[in-house]
């Protein structure tokens, strides 16, 4: 384990698109640190799986990347943004460039699939969409993205009529609509069956490769992480306990992430 902790996650020559250094996050003074000294780099074209039990800090790490979590100390650099020191307008711009995919899809069930995807282009849409309309060019692009995720035939249907896997693909299309520089997927397959989980994770990995952007995806299932990522980072109680290339890791090496050591001690 020590070897895994000390070993650099990846030896690369290119610059990381996201660089996190000694990140500490605490929600209130009387609460313990949720993230304690996290270091992480995200590179173009790679899919990084974030493993950890509930409460380990996975979601908080994602929130810290988009300015939704209070950074106590350390730095989060995403492209040109120093996330800890952004004003409201800059935060909106950062978020507009960060695609996010959620466990519960977070679609507006009554709106059509197409409109849900189009909401990904709201930043910078100005007052033109006050009447509920979107530019024709945006509509063309949204339909192309729905084609890409294989669900264009459902474009006119209300989002709530779709299955979980289909809704998650709509959510991915919405994230792509932002022309994201990075995609953060917070437990995107936790509500899906195993087959659909594999489909969604493969789609995310394909996007990372084709669009040459980093995809950070938090997961609970070790075999899925091993099968659908280039790198794995394991969080436990707010600290990174495992980090390495997926090809160099196996399930036993990832055991510390899920307290298996503690159970053995007991």
């Amino acid at each position, binding site marked *: 384990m020590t070897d895994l902790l000390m070993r650099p996650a990846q030896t690369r020559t290119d610059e990381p698109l996201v660089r996190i250094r000694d990140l500490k996050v605490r929600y209130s003074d009387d609460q313990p640190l949720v993230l304690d000294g996290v270091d992480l780099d995200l590179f173009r074209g790679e899919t990084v799986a974030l493993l950890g039990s509930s409460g380990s800090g996975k979601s908080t790490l994602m929130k810290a990347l988009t300015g939704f979590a209070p950074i106590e100390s350390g730095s989060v650099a995403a492209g040109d943004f120093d996330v800890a020191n952004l004003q409201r307008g800059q935060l909106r711009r950062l978020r507009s460039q960060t695609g996010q995919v959620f466990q*519960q899809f977070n679609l507006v069930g009554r*709106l059509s699939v197409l409109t849900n995807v189009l909401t990904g282009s*709201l930043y910078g849409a100005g007052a033109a969409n006050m009447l509920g309309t979107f530019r024709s060019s945006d509509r063309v692009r949204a339909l192309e993205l729905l084609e890409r995720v294989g669900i264009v035939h459902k474009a006119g249907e209300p989002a709530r009529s779709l299955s979980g896997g289909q809704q998650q693909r709509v959510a991915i299309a919405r994230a792509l609509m932002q022309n994201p520089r990075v995609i953060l997927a917070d437990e995107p397959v936790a509500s899906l069956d195993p087959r659909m989980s594999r489909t969604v994770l493969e789609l995310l990995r394909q996007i990372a490769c084709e669009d040459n952007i980093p995809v950070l995806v938090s997961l609970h299932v070790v075999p899925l992480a091993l099968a659908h990522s280039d790198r794995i980072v394991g969080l436990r*109680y707010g600290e990174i306990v495992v980090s390495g290339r997926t090809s160099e890791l196996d399930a036993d090496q990832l055991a510390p992430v899920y307290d298996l050591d503690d159970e053995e001690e007991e």
Partner: protein
Amino acid sequence: MSIAEKTKAKQELDPRARESMERAFRIPRARFVVGVVVGVAIFLWSANGAQFDFLKLGEGAANMGEFVLRMFPPDFSKIGLILALLLETLQMAVVGTVIGTVLSLIVAFGAASNIAPRWLYYLCRWTMNIIRALPDLVIALMFVSAVGLGPFAGILAMTIGSIGSIGKVFAEAMEAVDRGPIVAMESVGSSKRQVIQYGILPQALPLLTSYTLLLFEGNVRGATILGLVGAGGIGLELTTAMNRYDYGHLFAMVICIIVLVTIIDQASAIIRKKIT
């Protein structure tokens, strides 16, 4: 204490709490018993103060039956007048509901805690509380004194009354929407207006529509009462018929009102079904 230790300490259950939870039958908490006793005492005190008496109702049932019998048969000889007044009542309700809904929606944005800043939230909530505390007839009298007798005063009274009643439920409908889509909107860098337009309103729309239809139904019934103070509608004719003991005419008007309210209720049900 490390994060791991703190987390573990939080995960442990107090032994006494555990023992209490394991028992099949538990003695009710003192505050629950006190709450029930206080609730019953307040009800009995109120019933006594309001002279609530089932015996009296039983004794007077014969008089009520006699009153109902006097209304038979309904007299439809002035059906033209009844329909004209009903139409006016309906028109008042339509205009009052449309303007009332628009104003209520505006105030509701300020009164929804997930949309408005704290200062605006309290300002709007207090405004609605004050309006709700004013009886509709008092509001109607205020407008009758301002713009004179007629349906215009009634419409104004309905509009203001709507803000107090429907504005509150509009705000609560917006507060009750699923937070997920709102998070998604904020995550793409949307402005506050865009979050409301694409995240909150589409989710709240079925409830907003339902409450608007309820407001319309209420305004139709309300318009019959506002007429009592000269604020237009069929209310004045109802009062006149009662004062003249013209029960046949009164009953004909009541039947027409029932038919109108039933039609509106059915139409509302169809619209609600289409939207939800």
